[in-house]
C-alpha cells in the first residue's frame, strides 16, 4: 500500500489526527466536532420543545430553560454551523482551485484546535454552576456581573477562544484563494462555492474583530471591575447591542453564503446545465457581503433610536433583497429546462430555494421599522430566523453532505434512507416553524418557559413540538444512514458518482495527500465538465511530474490551543471557590501557549518531500484501482 505516503503511515490514527496539518483530515475533524455540537444543541432544542408542548409544563425550571435556550443558540451558531461549513470549505477549497493544500497548513490546524477548545470551555459551564443564561446575544445589563452568574464567564472566554480559531481560518482561506489557484483558474472561473467561501472569509475578518473587541469589553466589565456597560457608573448599555450586531448581522451571512455556494454547486450538476448567470451570482454575493455590514440597527428597531435612524436602516435592509433575489432567480433558471435528477442532494438543494424565499419574505416584513414593533420579541421572529438558518443553512449542509460524501469517504450514502430522511426533516421543519409565524402574530412571546392554557396557543405548540421530534428523527436516520452505508460500501471507492463539473471530481478517491500529482491546467469555468466535452475527460497537467514538497505534521497547534484553554479557565476561576490561586492557572496556561509558540518560532521545520518515484507509484496504484472497477 503506497497510497499513504511514508510519513503518515508510521503514525497511529489518533496521533495522526492530533498532529495533522492536512486540510482533508482537518476537514474531517471539523465535520466530527461540528456534528457532535450540532447533536448536542439539537437535543437542547428537543428539550425546549418538550417543555413548551403543553401549557404550564414543569419539565424544566425557568432557570434551566434560560440556560437551554442560550446554549442552543450559542452552540448552533458558533460551534455547529460554523465548523460544519468550515469542514466543507477546508475540504473543497484547495481541491476546487487545484491547490495541494491551504496556504498555511499549520494555521489551519491551529484554527481547528482553537475552535475545539473554545467549544469545550463553553460546554464545561454545565458542570461549574450553570450555563450562560442571557440568550445567545448576551445583552447587558442582563449579562453584567450584577445579574448573570459564572455561566457568562464561560460564554465570554469560550467564544473569545473559538473566535480566534475562526479568524485564523478566515485569513487562511483568503490567502489560499488569492495565491494558490491553479494555472488558468482566473477569479471568474472559480466555482461559486469558492467565491462564496472567499466572501465569507472576508466577512469573518471584518466581522469577528468587532466581536472580539466587544467580548473583551464585557470580560473587563465582568472580571476586572470595568464600567463600559454599567449605566450607574457612567457606562452605556446600548453600546453592547451595537457592537454585538455589527458582528452579528454579518455572522448570518458568514453562515448562509457558503450554503448558497453549496446550492450553486449542486443544482447545476443535477440539472446538467451550467449555472445560470454566473457573473451576476458573483457580484450579488459581493453586494450581499457589503450590505451585510450596513444593516445592523435593524436588530434594534425597538431601542428608540429615532425615526431617521430606523428608516435609513429599514431601507438598507430591504436593499439586500435585491441581490438575494438575483440569486433565487438564477437558481430557478438553472433548473429551468434542465435534465433534472432528484437525488437526496438535489432534493435538499431545490427545496432550499422556496424555503429560503419564505424566510426572506418574513425578513422584509421584519425590516419595516413601523410594523416591527408588533412582531418584536414574538415567535414570528423565531420562525423567521429558523427559516433562514434551518431551511437555508442546514438544508444546504445536508445537501452538501450527500453530494460530497463519496469524495470524502469513498462511498455514497444510501439514497432510500436519504429520501426518507429528507421528507421527514422537511415536513417536520415546516410543522415546527410555519405554525410559529401564526403563534407569533397572535401574541406568543419568545424566550418564555411557560404559557397559560386556553389562549389559542395549545394546539399549535403541540404541533410545533411534534415537528421538532420529526426533525430529531430525521437526524437519527442520517446517522443510521452513515453507519449502514459504511457497512454496505462497495469494495472499490467511487470517483465521480454524480458526473461532476468542478475540479474536486478530477482527483482520485481517496484523495492522495498531495491532491494533484501534477497541478491541472484549467481551461474554462466548470473545468472537468469542459474536459469531458472537449477533451478526453481528464485534466491536462500544467507542470511536469516532480518531487512534491509537503509540510510536516505538528503537535504544537494542539498545545497552543490547550494553553489558551487553561488560561481562559484560570480567568473563570476568579469567580469560583478554587483551592488554587486562579492567577497561577492563568500564568501556567500562558506559559504553555507562548512556550509552544516559541518552539514553533525557533525550531526549524522545512517539511519533507514525496519523491517523484513515490508519486509515480501512488498514481499507478490509483489508476490500476480505477481500471478494476
Amino acid at each position, binding site marked *: 500500500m503506497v497510497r499513504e505516503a511514508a510519513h503518515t503511515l508510521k503514525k497511529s490514527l489518533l496521533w495522526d489526527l492530533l498532529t495533522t496539518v492536512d486540510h482533508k483530515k482537518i476537514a474531517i475533524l471539523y465535520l466530527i466536532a461540528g456534528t457532535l455540537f450540532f447533536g448536542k444543541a439539537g437535543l437542547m432544542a428537543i428539550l425546549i420543545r418538550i417543555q413548551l408542548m403543553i401549557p404550564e409544563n414543569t419539565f424544566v425550571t425557568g432557570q434551566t430553560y434560560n440556560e437551554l435556550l442560550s446554549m442552543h443558540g450559542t452552540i448552533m451558531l458558533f460551534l455547529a454551523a460554523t465548523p460544519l461549513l468550515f469542514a466543507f470549505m477546508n475540504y473543497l477549497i484547495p481541491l476546487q482551485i487545484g491547490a495541494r493544500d491551504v496556504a498555511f497548513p499549520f494555521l489551519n490546524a491551529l484554527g481547528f484546535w482553537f475552535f475545539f477548545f473554545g467549544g469545550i470551555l463553553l460546554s464545561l459551564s454545565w458542570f461549574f454552576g450553570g450555563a450562560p443564561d442571557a440568550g445567545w446575544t448576551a445583552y447587558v445589563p442582563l449579562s453584567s456581573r450584577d445579574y448573570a452568574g459564572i455561566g457568562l464567564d464561560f460564554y465570554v472566554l469560550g467564544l473569545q477562544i473559538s473566535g480566534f480559531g475562526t479568524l485564523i481560518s478566515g485569513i487562511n482561506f483568503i490567502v489560499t484563494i*488569492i495565491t494558490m489557484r491553479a494555472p488558468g483558474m482566473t477569479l471568474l472561473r472559480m466555482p461559486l462555492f469558492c467565491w462564496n467561501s472567499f466572501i465569507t472569509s*472576508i466577512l469573518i475578518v*471584518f466581522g469577528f474583530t468587532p466581536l472580539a473587541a466587544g467580548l473583551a469589553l464585557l470580560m473587563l466589565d465582568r472580571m476586572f471591575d470595568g464600567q463600559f456597560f454599567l*449605566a450607574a457608573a457612567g457606562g*452605556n448599555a*446600548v*453600546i453592547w447591542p*451595537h457592537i454585538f450586531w*455589527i458582528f452579528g448581522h454579518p455572522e448570518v451571512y458568514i453562515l448562509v453564503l457558503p450554503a448558497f455556494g453549496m446550492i450553486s454547486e449542486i443544482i447545476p450538476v443535477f440539472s446538467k446545465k451550467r449555472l445560470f448567470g454566473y457573473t451576476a451570482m458573483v457580484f450579488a454575493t459581493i453586494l450581499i457581503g*457589503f450590505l451585510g*455590514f*450596513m444593516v445592523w*440597527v435593524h436588530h434594534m428597531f425597538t*431601542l*428608540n*433610536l*429615532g425615526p431617521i*435612524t430606523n428608516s435609513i436602516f429599514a431601507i438598507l435592509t430591504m436593499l439586500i433583497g435585491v441581490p438575494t433575489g438575483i440569486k433565487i432567480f438564477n437558481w430557478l433558471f438553472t433548473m429551468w429546462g434542465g435534465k433534472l435528477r432528484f437525488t437526496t442532494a438535489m432534493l435538499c438543494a431545490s427545496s432550499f430555494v422556496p424555503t429560503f424565499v419564505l424566510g426572506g419574505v418574513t425578513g422584509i416584513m421584519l425590516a419595516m421599522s413601523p410594523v416591527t414593533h408588533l412582531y418584536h420579541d414574538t415567535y414570528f421572529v423565531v420562525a423567521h430566523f429558523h427559516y433562514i438558518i434551518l431551511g437555508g443553512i442546514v438544508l444546504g449542509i445536508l445537501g452538501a453532505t450527500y453530494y460530497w460524501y463519496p469524495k470524502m469517504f469513498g462511498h455514497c450514502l444510501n439514497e432510500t434512507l436519504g429520501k426518507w430522511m429528507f421528507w421527514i426533516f422537511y415536513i417536520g421543519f415546516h410543522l415546527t416553524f410555519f405554525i410559529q409565524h401564526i403563534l407569533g402574530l397572535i401574541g406568543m412571546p419568545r424566550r418564555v418557559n411557560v404559557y397559560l392554557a386556553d389562549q389559542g396557543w395549545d394546539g399549535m405548540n403541540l404541533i410545533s413540538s411534534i415537528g421538532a421530534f420529526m426533525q430529531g428523527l430525521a437526524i437519527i436516520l442520517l446517522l443510521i444512514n452513515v453507519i449502514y452505508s459504511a457497512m454496505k460500501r462497495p469494495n472499490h471507492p467511487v470517483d465521480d458518482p454524480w458526473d461532476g463539473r468542478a475540479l474536486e471530481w478530477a482527483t482520485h478517491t481517496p484523495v492522495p495527500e498531495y491532491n494533484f500529482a501534477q497541478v491541472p491546467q484549467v481551461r474554462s469555468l466548470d473545468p472537468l465538465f469542459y474536459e469531458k466535452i472537449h477533451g478526453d475527460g481528464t485534466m491536462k497537467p500544467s507542470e511536469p511530474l516532480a*518531487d512534491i514538497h509537503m509540510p510536516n505534521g505538528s503537535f504544537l497547534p494542539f498545545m497552543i490551543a490547550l494553553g489558551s484553554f487553561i488560561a481562559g479557565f484560570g480567568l473563570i476561576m476568579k469567580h469560583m471557590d478554587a483551592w488554587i490561586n486562579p492567577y497561577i492557572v492563568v500564568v501556567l496556561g500562558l506559559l504553555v501557549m507562548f512556550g509552544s509558540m516559541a518552539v514553533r518560532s525557533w525550531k*526549524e521545520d*522545512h517539511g519533507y*518531500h514525496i519523491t517523484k518515484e513515490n508519486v509515480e507509484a501512488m498514481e499507478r496504484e490509483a489508476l490500476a484501482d480505477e481500471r478494476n472497477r
Partner: protein
Amino acid sequence: MADHLSEPFEKSAMTNEERVKTEREMRIQFIAFAFMIALTFLAFIAVGAEVAPPGFVISFIIFLAFIQLFLQLYYFMHLKDKDHGWANTFMVSGLVLSIPTVVALILIIGVVKY
C-alpha cells in the same frame, strides 16, 4: 534534495540594480518618517497654542490624521509598491466598511446616551 536549508548565505543574492533600489527606498522611508514627525508636532502645536477656535482645531487635526494614515499605509507599509493590489483592496474595503459604521455609531450613541 534541499539539504542546506538552515545554513546562512555567504553573500547577498541581490543584484546591483536591486541594491540601488533598496537604498532609494530607504531614503524615501526616512523622508516620510521626518514628514510624519513634523505633522505630529504640528498637531500638538495646533492644540497647545490655543489661538484658533476649537472647532477649527479639531477639523484641522483630523485632516492631519488622514494625511498621516495615508503616509503610514502607502509609504511605511508599502501599499504604494507593485504587487500590493490585494492588500490595497482589503485596506480600502476595510475603510469603506468601518468609516460609515463608526460615523453612524457616533451619531446614534450621541443621541441616546443614558
